[in-house]
């Protein structure tokens, strides 16, 4: 292999090793360290940050099972057992022959067709024990996963009637960027500002303002980064947008590039979507052929724009924009301290726009359809439509493009959810909703949803949901700041205590107080929001918690489980 010349190539190189050999060997680490004049431990530090990189042989076929709560409720345990039985591998390891590696991972963005798995990063959906047996049998016979993997359906269940759809409508490549011919960069930014577009990754930062701030920076070059690392469990809207409308996203990047004066766009694609990479590359190639990328794309004079894809490697926190930038620079994906915004010092310390896939798609449509049309839909503060990924206990899981302002009740009816009880919006870091709140609406004014809607019916155990979230944060915390690294671990232990029936009212009070501390003291959104749902659920589902929590009136903690505490010692009884 050619020597690496820059640290930004590191992740790609590590992927080459990982895919060629099934793991990253000591020699590979040495080679990377030598090329980049880094110590080996620094390379180790990067590798160990991303859970798709292995330092030991991880099997010819590497199987990743989704351990998200949706997967859990759709039969994860059964599927896991089936895989273990058929492959001979135990979860977290490789079978004796070294053929299969079996691992679990956070949400893989297929919540509408769980239980699902990735095998060598090819998707297998709607699994059952029979299907697992067939898949493994075929792999053992030498069939390649790419030849038997599933076609992932988009499941676009709803778009607004009456030509109100903004995303899922006819698409003609180049139509959006054509508008740029008559617009100055300033006018393009003004258009986006007028449209009221705000960040669809969940932060709701005004997109026009972000672009303006970046344009105002004197430093050059500038970068446009498309954040395609939607890791929030239950979210798959960007997957569908990239699958159904990849060109729209590319045009959004071109528009952003034109507006802020950037010539390079990078799509940071989460490794869970490796199977989309080829398609995206084909579309990018087609754009070049059609003259929509490269020199003077779409005939825009004095402008050049190129796009490449950067693969992530398995880290939820890299969806946080500064962590994503570190990751693109070949570093550990730790969020940066907030001394500078990415628009000031982003990728390689240069002005950088980081926008979510949906934001960029929306920007394209705003130029194509005109601000007027956008402003006719949605709510005053959030005009337009929103793409929601709906999963869980409903008949029709999938993608719903709804007008901003749509209510929870609307959505429940559309997706035919039966007896919903606990609805989690915006993923574990978002908020939980009880049925008393079914009239609340998706909007900037009310429920600021990034796209994930997970529905749980009355049969589901609230504590199981919350524990799944706590496990998720515990392992996905980047580990750099104390409140998030230690706090999530502590909270997870607390939930274990409740699950064992050992908790008292004081424990719930402590959860509230500790959650608050994590919220104010953590470095980034992960730690700040990790206990949101847990704390909210205590207030929103009092009837549930009152049945599992007691008062410790005499201070004697009779809940303490002596039998459990002595079980290990009892083994020494002769």
């Amino acid at each position, binding site marked *: 292999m050619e020597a690496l010349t820059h640290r930004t190539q590191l992740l790609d190189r590590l992927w080459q090793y990982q895919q060629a050999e099934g793991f990253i060997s000591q020699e590979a680490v040495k080679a990377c360290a030598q090329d980049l004049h880094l110590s080996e431990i*620094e390379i180790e530090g990067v590798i160990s940050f991303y859970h798709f990189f292995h330092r030991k042989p991880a099997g010819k076929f590497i199987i990743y099972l989704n351990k998200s709560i949706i997967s859990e409720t759709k039969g994860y345990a059964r599927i896991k057992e089936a895989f273990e039985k058929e492959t001979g591998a135990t979860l977290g390891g490789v079978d004796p022959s070294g053929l299969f590696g079996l691992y679990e991972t956070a949400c893989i963005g297929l919540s509408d067709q769980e239980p699902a798995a990735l095998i060598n990063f090819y998707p297998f959906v709607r699994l059952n024990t029979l299907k697992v047996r067939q898949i493994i049998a075929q792999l053992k016979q030498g069939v390649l996963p790419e030849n038997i993997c599933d076609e992932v359906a988009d499941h676009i269940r709803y778009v607004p009637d009456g030509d109100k759809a903004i995303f899922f409508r006819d698409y003609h490549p180049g139509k959006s960027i054509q508008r740029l011919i008559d617009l100055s960069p300033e006018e393009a930014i003004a258009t986006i500002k007028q449209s009221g577009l705000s960040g669809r990754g969940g932060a709701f930062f005004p997109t026009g303002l972000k672009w303006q701030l970046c344009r105002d920076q004197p430093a050059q070059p500038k970068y446009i980064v498309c954040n395609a690392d939607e890791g929030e469990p239950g979210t798959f809207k960007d997957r569908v947008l990239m699958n159904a409308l990849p060109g729209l996203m590319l045009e959004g990047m071109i528009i952003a590039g034109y507006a802020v004066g950037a010539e390079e766009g990078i799509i940071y694609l989460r490794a869970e979507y490796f199977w989309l990479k080829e398609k995206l590359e084909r579309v990018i190639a087609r754009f070049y052929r059609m003259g929509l990328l490269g020199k003077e794309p779409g005939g825009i004079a004095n402008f050049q724009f190129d796009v490449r894809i950067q693969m992530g490697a398995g880290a939820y926190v890299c969806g946080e924009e500064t962590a994503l930038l570190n990751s693109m620079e070949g570093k550990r994906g730790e969020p940066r301290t907030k001394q500078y915004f990415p628009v000031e010092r982003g990728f390689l310390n240069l002005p950088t726009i980081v926008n979510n896939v949906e934001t960029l798609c929306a920007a394209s449509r705003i130029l194509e359809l005109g601000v007027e049309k956008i402003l006719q839909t949605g709510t005053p503060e959030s005009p337009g439509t929103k793409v929601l990924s709906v999963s869980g206990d409903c008949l029709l899981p999938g993608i719903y493009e709804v007008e901003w302002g749509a209510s929870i009740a609307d959505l429940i009816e559309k997706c035919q959810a039966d007896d919903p009880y606990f609805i989690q919006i915006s993923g574990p870091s978002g908020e939980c909703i009880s049925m008393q709140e079914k009239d609340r609406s998706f909007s900037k004014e009310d429920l600021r949803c990034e796209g994930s809607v997970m529905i749980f019916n009355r049969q589901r155990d609230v504590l199981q949901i919350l524990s799944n979230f706590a496990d998720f944060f515990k392992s996905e915390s980047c580990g750099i700041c104390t409140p998030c*690294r230690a706090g999530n671990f502590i909270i997870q232990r607390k939930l274990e205590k409740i699950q064992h029936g050992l908790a008292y009212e004081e424990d719930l009070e402590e959860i509230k107080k500790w959650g608050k*501390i994590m919220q104010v003291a953590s470095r980034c959104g992960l730690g700040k929001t990790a206990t949101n749902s847990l704390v909210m659920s205590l207030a929103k589902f009092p009837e549930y918690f009152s049945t599992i929590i007691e008062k410790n009136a005499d201070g004697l903690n009779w809940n303490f489980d002596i039998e459990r505490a002595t079980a290990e010692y009892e083994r020494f009884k002769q």
Partner: protein
Amino acid sequence: MGKEISFTIDGQEIKAFEGENLVTVAQRNGIYIPSLCYFEHIDPPLGSCRVCTCKVNGKTGPACMEKVYSDMRVEVNTLELQDIRKAVTEMMFAEGNHFCPACEKSGNCDLQHVAYEMSIASARFPHLFKDRLIDYEPKRMVIHHNRCVKCMRCVEEVFTDDGQRVFSACGRGNETVLGIDYEQEAKLSEEQALSAMQICPTGAILVKGQSLSLPFGDRAFDLKSVQKNREKAQEVDYGSDITTLEKRTIATISLAGCFGCHMSMLDIDLELVDLLDLVEFNKSPLNDIKEFTQQCDIGLIEGGCCNTENIEVLREFRKKCKILVAMGECAIWGGLPAMRNTISLEECLEEAYLNSVTTQEGEYTIPYHEDLPKILDKVYPCSEIVKIDYYIPGCPPSAEHIWKVVKNLLWGKDYSVLYAEFKYD
């Protein structure tokens, strides 16, 4: 340097140069903001430990990330912020395995010092007791992963002469550990290794063959607080009105402890005679009364719970004592006996009874008899078994500290526990 500006900390006007770091400016003005990862010369600051959390213009964040500017409004010593800073520090104690009495760095440890300054008597969080490595592989160093707080000071500061990093964070989430590059570490000179040990705010990085032991009183953080106004209340002279006080009853017990705290209690020497005019001891090893004969005003508990008998006795104390005080590190969070909490009971007993170097094969079995208390899977802090009202840290706590707390609780008089009396070792 920027122009001279003024701003406020807790309402007090402060003059500084624009762009100076807030932690440094506060320190210069006698306002204590604890910090573990902050180093003046690391720019941008690491912002990893979060112990310096304060408020700027109403927004909560780490002070080390703030550069001062004109008219900024800083809050440091509000009750809320003090509690947050304490909590973050307590998280570090709960997350690592910080056995101060057994640590080479004790007395010279920044983490311990910060906790002393904030008067942290116990961590509100359950200790996690994750099994962590003590790595003797490096040429010059020993890395105690139990003690690392992941401040990243060493990652950013320790380089070889060829500019290579020696440390890096490895792993993620609660599995994050400090990685050390053996090859690079071997290239460090003795001075470079020593400086790594010095910048470590805990005892995570030690240098082989280097002794840190100094007599108590000579160590960096033993005697004097860095805060000007820490010792507030005056010592109360309780001798004069001694006869007017109502007589109270005390019970004491040593559970999974070493009786060291009880020995320490006796350390007030002749004052013990005065004390006996004021209190009567009920159930206690000091007088060998085995059973409670009445309700007591206060119960002093030494040691945590390592077996079923400890639990039974502790519950009895809770029932018989109005106020229950956990005295010493073992009672508070397990202390030294809790060193076994990171390994399984089976492994621990086998090592002690079967595989130790002094046992002959087949000489002993692991004791189990129905008359013997059952050993618990781990050593539990008293607060997990019953409600504990107060905590006196120390291993052992000094006699002054113990009796000041007891007298305060029994007769409501204020006694200032001096900085030098407040210790974890």
